[in-house]
C-alpha cells in the first residue's frame, strides 16, 4: 500500500500526461474530456462524502475503484495513488480517516483542474 509520503510525492496534476492527451486528441476533444473529468470528480466527491459520513464501506470501495484508474488517465497522480491506497483497505480496517484524506485530495485536484480548464478556455 502506498504510504502518505509516497502519495504526497505524486503531483496533483501531471502536465506531461495532459500534454500528451491534448497532442493526441486535439484541443476541442481535450477540453471536452477535461470537463467530463471535472464533472465526474464532483459527483464522486459528493458520493464519497456521504459514504464516509454513513460508514458505507462498499460505496467507498466502488468510488475508489473508478477513481484510481480514471485519475491516472487524466494525470491526477496524487488522487490516483490515494484512491488506490483506500481501495486496498479491508472493511475491518480504519478506512474513514483515509477516505477523509482522499476527499481533501479530490478538493485540491478539482481546484487545480478547474483553474487549468479556465486557462485553456481563455
Amino acid at each position: 500500500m502506498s504510504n502518505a509520503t509516497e502519495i504526497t510525492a505524486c503531483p496533483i496534476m501531471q502536465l506531461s500526461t495532459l500534454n500528451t492527451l491534448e497532442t493526441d486528441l486535439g484541443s476541442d476533444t481535450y477540453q471536452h474530456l477535461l470537463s467530463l473529468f471535472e464533472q465526474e470528480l464532483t459527483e464522486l466527491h459528493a458520493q464519497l462524502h456521504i459514504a464516509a459520513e454513513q460508514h458505507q464501506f462498499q460505496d467507498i470501495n466502488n468510488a475508489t475503484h473508478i477513481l484510481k484508474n480514471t485519475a491516472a488517465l487524466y494525470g491526477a497522480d496524487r488522487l490516483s495513488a490515494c484512491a488506490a491506497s483506500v481501495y486496498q483497505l479491508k472493511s475491518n480496517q480504519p478506512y474513514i480517516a483515509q477516505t477523509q484524506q482522499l476527499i481533501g485530495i479530490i478538493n485540491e485536484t478539482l481546484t487545480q483542474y478547474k483553474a487549468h480548464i479556465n486557462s485553456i478556455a481563455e
Partner: protein
Amino acid sequence: MNTTHKPLVYVVEDSLSSGALYCSQLQKAGFDTQHFVDGYSALVAIKAKMPAVLVQDVCLPDISGLEVLKYVNKQEVAAKVIIITSNSSIDVAVDAMRLGGYDFIEKPFTSERLITSVTNAIKQQNQDLKTVEVEPTATSLDRINFIGESLSMHTVFRLLESAARSKASVFVTGESGTGKEVCALGLHQASAREQGPFIAINCAAIPAELFESEFFGHVKGAFSGALTDRKGAVEVANGGTLFLDEICEMQLNLQAKLLRFLQTGTFCKVGSSEVLQSDVRIVCATNRNPAEEVGEGRFREDLYYRLNVIPVVLPALRERGEDILLLAHHILKAKTTENNKQFENFSDEVKQTFMQYDWPGNIRELQNVIENIVVIYDGQSVQPDMLPSNFGHNVVNQAQYSPHNQMAQTNISTMASTPLRSQASTPEQSSAPNNIIQLWIVEKNAIEDAISQCGGNIPLAAAYLGISASTIYRKMKSWAEN
C-alpha cells in the same frame, strides 16, 4: 460525403470520463464508437446492433462484464470482446478469456495498447466472417495440421479452435515429442496473425547471460561483443506469434521481465532506455508440470497465470490408442514419398508391436523409427525384422492392446518404463560380447564430440546433430545425475 465503413466499437466502462477518453482515442484511430456506463444499456444496444468489437470493463455497477461476454458469445455473429481490468481483478480476466474473450488489457493502459488490440480484433473478426462466407463447413481447426481421432485429441482440437480465434496466451504442456511446436505453429497459422511472423525461442537453449538480448534485442555497445544494434525476438515477432519453448527453464529475473512485457506490451532493448512497443501473441510450452514448478518456487506464479489463460495438454502417444497407427500410416506415406520408395502399409505384427510399445519419445520417436525403416529397407509392407534391433524389446507396455498375447503381458509387467541405461545393461548381464558399447555411451561420446568440434557452442552442436539443444541439456543433466 465519406462513405467509408468504419468498424463499430462499443465501450462498456462505468467511468464517464474514462469511457469518453477511450472512445476519443478510438475515433481518432478511425473507429465508430459508442459508450455505455453499465451492462444493461450495453446489452440492449448489442441486441439492437452487434458491434465488431466490444471493449468491456469487468467490474460494472449492475451486472458483471462476464455476463455481457457470455451473452455476446451466444449470438450467431459475435463481436470480439476485449476485457479491460485492473490488477485486482486479473483472475476474473483469465476467466473471461476462457469464456471466449479475445484479449485483455490491464488498466492503466496506453492508447497505443488499446488501438492495437482493437485493430487486431477487427482483423480476426474479418477473417472469421470471411471463413464463414467462403467455407461454411470449414473451421480454423482444418488449418491446424494435426492428426488424431482419439477422445483426448478431440479435446485438444476444441481448445485449439477457440484459442485460434483469440489473442489469449496459450500454455502447451506435454511430454517431449508430443508435438508442442507443431501445435504452436498450427495456432499461428489458424489465427488472424497468420501473415505475421512466427518466432520460436527455446528458453533452455539460450545461455542465461544472452537471454535478455535474444529476447528484447540490444543496442550497439550495450556489452562487449554488441557491435551493432540488434532486434530481439519480441520485436521481430511484432504482429505475429512468439513461441517460447521450455519456458520453465527461464531464469526468475528474466521471468520478471517477460511478465512486465506481457502486462504493458512495452520493452527496452539492452543498453537503451527507449520504450518500444510490440504486439505479439504468446504461446509457450514445457514438458514439466508448470504448477509444480510454481509450487517449488522455480516459476513465478503471476507469470504462470498470465500465460496459462488457455492450457492445452497434449497427450502422450501411448495414451492415444488407434492414433498411433493413424500417425504411423501418415508418416510412412510422407517418408516413402520423400525417399522415393514403395512402402504402403505395416504388417499385422508390426502394428501390434506399435500398439504395445510405450513410445517414451512420442511422435518424434515414431517418426525416427519409420524413417529409419524407409531409408534402409525396400518393399511394400513394413515387416517386424525391419524394426531397429533395439526397438520394442525393453519398454513394451500397454497390455490393453495385446489381450491375446499372454507372453507379451508377462514381459510388459516386468519391463515397462525401464530407464534407458538399465535397459542397455540387460544384455551385458547375460552373455553379450565385451566389445559392444552401451548405446547411451555411444550417444554421449557423439554429443560431447560434436560440442567440442563446435567450440562448446551447444545450440550449434545440436543443429549439426539434428536434435534440439534442449535435448542435449536434458541428456547432460541425466549423465550428471547418474
